[in-house]
C-alpha cells in the first residue's frame, strides 16, 4: 500500500530531530522529540490539536526557536540557523499567498528575493505552474482563484526552489472533501516524483495513512509511536494510538485480567498467555469481528442502531452501556433492539493496561 521511498535526486536530505524540547514560559509544549527522517521520505506528524505537532514543524522551519535539542538537515547542524538559510519550503494551512501579487509573482517570489535573472525566473515559474496545472492562471490574483487552485499556487511556490526539505502544515484542511481526496493523490504523486524529504502535519488519520512512508503519532507533546502506516494501525503501541487510528475507531471493553481470564461485568472469558492486570482494556477493530446469534460469540450485546453506508453495514451495539461497533457486509440485515453475539479470531484481540495505556499483549 505504501510506495517505497523514491530514489533520491541528490538534493533530498535526511533530517534528524534530536531531543526537541519547547517551553513557553513554564509550559512544556514538546517533550524530548527525536525522529530520524530519511532522505526522500514522506513523514507525517499526526495527532489531535494541541499535541505539539505544529510546534515541532515550526521548530524545524526555524519559525520557533528550539529550547533544547538539535536539528540536522543532511549533515549540517541548523539548530541556530535562521529559517532562510535552512533551504526549506513550507506550505501553510492558510496557504499564505500574497494577496497583492499575481499567481506568477507569488510562485516566483522565492526566486525574486534570491535575485534570479528575469528570464530564468520566468521559465522556472512556467515550469512550476505547469507541474501543478496552473499555466493558464498566471496573471490572476489569489482572490480570484478557487480553494484548490490556491492550494496549487502554494505548492508551486514551494517546489520552484527545489528545496532540500518540504514542510506542510495541514495543507488540505481548508478544502472540501472531494477536492481533498484529489489533492492528496496529487501531493503523493508529486512527492514521489520529486523525491524531496517531506514532513507533513495533520490531524486527519486518513491523510496520514495514505500519504506517509512513516507516521509519527503525538499526544501532549510526547511521541507515542513511530512506524509505517501498517505498523501503527495493526500493531499500536498503546491505548491512545489504538483509539486514534481507524474509522470507526477500535472498540474498547474495560475490565480486569486475572489468571488468564478477562472479567468485565457479567462476561468472563479466557485470554491465554496474558499477564495479570488489575484494570485491563480489551480492544478489537470493527472490521475484525462479526455478528452471530446470541450466546454463540465471546460476548452478547443489544443492537442499538444499524447504519447502511453503501459498501457496508455499521452495527452499533451496547453492552452494559459500552458502545461496540461491528462492520458487516452490505447484505447483512438485523433489527435495532435485537440481541446479538459478537465473535472474532482471538489473534485480533488487543489488551491494554487501562491505567498506563501500555499494550500488555501483542495481537
Amino acid at each position, binding site marked *: 500500500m505504501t510506495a517505497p521511498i523514491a530514489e533520491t535526486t541528490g538534493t533530498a536530505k535526511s533530517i534528524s530531530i534530536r531531543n526537541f524540547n519547547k517551553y513557553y514560559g513554564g509550559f512544556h509544549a514538546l517533550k524530548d522529540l527525536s525522529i530520524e527522517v530519511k532522505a526522500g521520505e514522506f513523514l507525517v506528524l499526526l495527532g489531535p490539536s494541541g499535541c505539539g505537532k505544529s510546534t515541532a514543524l515550526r521548530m524545524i522551519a526555524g*519559525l520557533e526557536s528550539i529550547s533544547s535539542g538539535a536539528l540536522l538537515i543532511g549533515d*549540517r547542524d541548523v539548530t541556530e540557523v*535562521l*529559517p532562510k538559510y535552512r533551504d526549506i519550503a513550507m506550505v501553510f494551512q492558510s496557504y499564505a499567498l500574497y494577496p497583492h501579487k499575481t499567481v506568477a509573482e507569488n510562485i516566483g517570489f522565492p526566486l525574486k528575493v534570491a535575485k534570479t535573472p528575469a528570464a530564468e525566473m520566468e521559465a522556472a515559474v512556467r515550469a512550476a505552474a505547469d507541474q501543478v496545472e496552473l499555466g493558464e492562471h498566471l496573471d490572476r490574483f489569489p482572490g480570484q482563484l478557487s480553494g484548490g487552485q490556491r492550494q496549487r499556487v502554494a505548492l508551486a511556490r514551494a517546489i520552484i526552489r527545489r528545496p532540500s526539505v518540504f514542510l506542510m502544515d495541514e495543507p488540505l484542511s481548508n478544502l472540501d472533501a472531494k477536492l481533498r481526496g484529489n489533492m492528496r493523490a496529487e501531493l503523493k504523486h508529486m512527492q514521489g516524483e520529486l523525491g524531496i524529504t517531506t514532513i507533513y502535519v495533520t490531524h486527519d488519520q486518513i491523510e496520514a495513512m495514505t500519504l506517509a512512508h512513516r507516521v509519527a503519532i503525538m499526544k501532549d507533546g510526547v511521541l507515542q509511536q513511530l512506524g509505517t502506516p501498517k505498523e501503527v494501525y495493526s500493531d499500536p503501541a498503546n491505548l491512545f494510538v489504538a483509539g486514534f487510528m481507524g474509522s470507526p475507531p477500535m472498540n474498547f471493553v474495560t475490565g480486569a485480567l486475572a489468571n488468564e481470564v478477562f472479567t468485565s461485568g457479567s462476561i468472563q472469558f479466557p485470554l491465554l498467555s496474558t499477564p495479570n492486570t488489575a484494570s485491563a482494556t480489551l480492544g478489537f477493530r470493527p472490521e475484525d469481528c462479526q455478528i452471530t446469534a446470541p450466546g454463540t460469540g465471546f460476548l452478547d450485546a443489544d443492537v442499538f442502531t444499524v447504519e447502511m453506508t453503501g459498501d457496508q453495514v455499521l452495527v452499533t451495539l451496547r453492552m452494559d452501556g459500552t458502545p461496540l461497533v461491528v462492520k458487516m457486509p452490505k447484505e447483512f440485515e438485523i433489527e435495532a433492539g435485537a440481541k446479538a453475539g459478537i465473535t472474532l479470531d482471538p489473534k485480533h484481540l488487543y489488551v491494554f493496561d487501562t491505567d498506563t495505556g501500555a499494550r500488555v499483549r501483542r495481537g
Partner: protein
Amino acid sequence: MTPKRSIFEAPRIGQMSMATKIVLYSLLLIWSAFVLFPIYWLIITSFKDAADVNQGPFFIPFVDYQPTLHAWKELFVNDYEDTLRAYFNSIVISLSATALSVLIGSMAAYALSRVSYAPNLITILYFIALLALTVLAVTIYQVDWRLASAVAIAMFFFLARAVGNLYQFQLHNGDILFWIISQRILAPIVVVVPIYIMFQSVGLLDTHIAIIITYAVVNMPIVVWLMYDFFNSIPRDLEESAQLDGATMIGTFREIVLPLSRTGLAATTLLVMILSWNEYLLALFLSTSKAQTMPILVAAMNAGERGILWWTMSVAIIVMIIPVVVLAIFLQKYISKGLLVGAVKG
C-alpha cells in the same frame, strides 16, 4: 555557505539584531519625548506665576522656581463663574450631542446593514430641486418661509410618485451609506452660515440645544461609518434566530445587537465625545455668551490686554484635557479594538 548578513538581520531565531533594537527604541523614545515634553511644560507652567514665566525658562519645580497655585486660584476662585459655566456648558453639550449622535447614527447604521432600501434617484433630485426653489423664493423673492415650505411639501407629496415613475433609477444601501459618510467632507464653514441664520430666525442662537443638534449632525457620518462596519461584522444568524423566536426588530436590536456591539459603541462614543468636546469653529458661530464652551473660553484668553497669561491658560487647557483622559482610560481597552474593525477591513 553562510552568506553576507546585514546588520539588521536577526542573530538568532526570534531575536532582533542590536542594530534593529537601537533604531527601534531610539525612534520610540525620541517620539515619546516629543509628545511628553510639551505636556510636561504645560503642567509646570500652570504652577508658575508671572515672574516665573517672564524671567526665562525654568524647568524643574522646587529647584528652578517655587510652584504656586496662583493660576489655579485665579481661574477657580476669582473667575469661577465664567470657568464653571463654560465647563458645565461643555459637559452638557458634548454628552448630549454624543448621546444623540450615537443613538441616531447607530440606528441608521443598523438599518442600513440589515434592511434593503431602494430609493429612486429621480424622486431625490426632485426633492432637492424643490428645496432649492423654496430657499430661492424665501431669500431672494422674500416669500414668507411658512408659505413657501407648505407649498413645497404639498408639491412633493402630490407629485413625488408621478415624477418618480418617469425614470426608474434605483439607488441601494451602499449609495445611502456613501451619501451619509460623504457629509463628513463638508467643511463646517460651508454649512454654518445658513445654520446660523436658521437658529437665529427661530431664536435658538446661543442655546445648548442649537449646539447639541449641530454637533450631533456633524459627527453622525463618523458614527454611521464605524457602526455600519461593526454591525456588519456581527453574524446575522443570531438575529435571525431571535426573530424566529418572535422578537421584534427593536427587541432584537436591544437584546442581541447592542450588547454585542459594546466595543464598537464604546470606541465610537469616545471619538465623538472628544470631537464634540474640542470643537471650536461651530461653537464660535453658534454661541456668544450663555452657551459658551471651554474651547471658546480658552481661545478668548488670548484677547487680554496684558498679552497671554500663560499660567492661567495652562490651567484652562489642563482642566480641558482631564475629562478626556479619564474617559479614555475607562474606555481604553475598547479603543484599538472597536475603532478599527471597519477601518482595517477597508
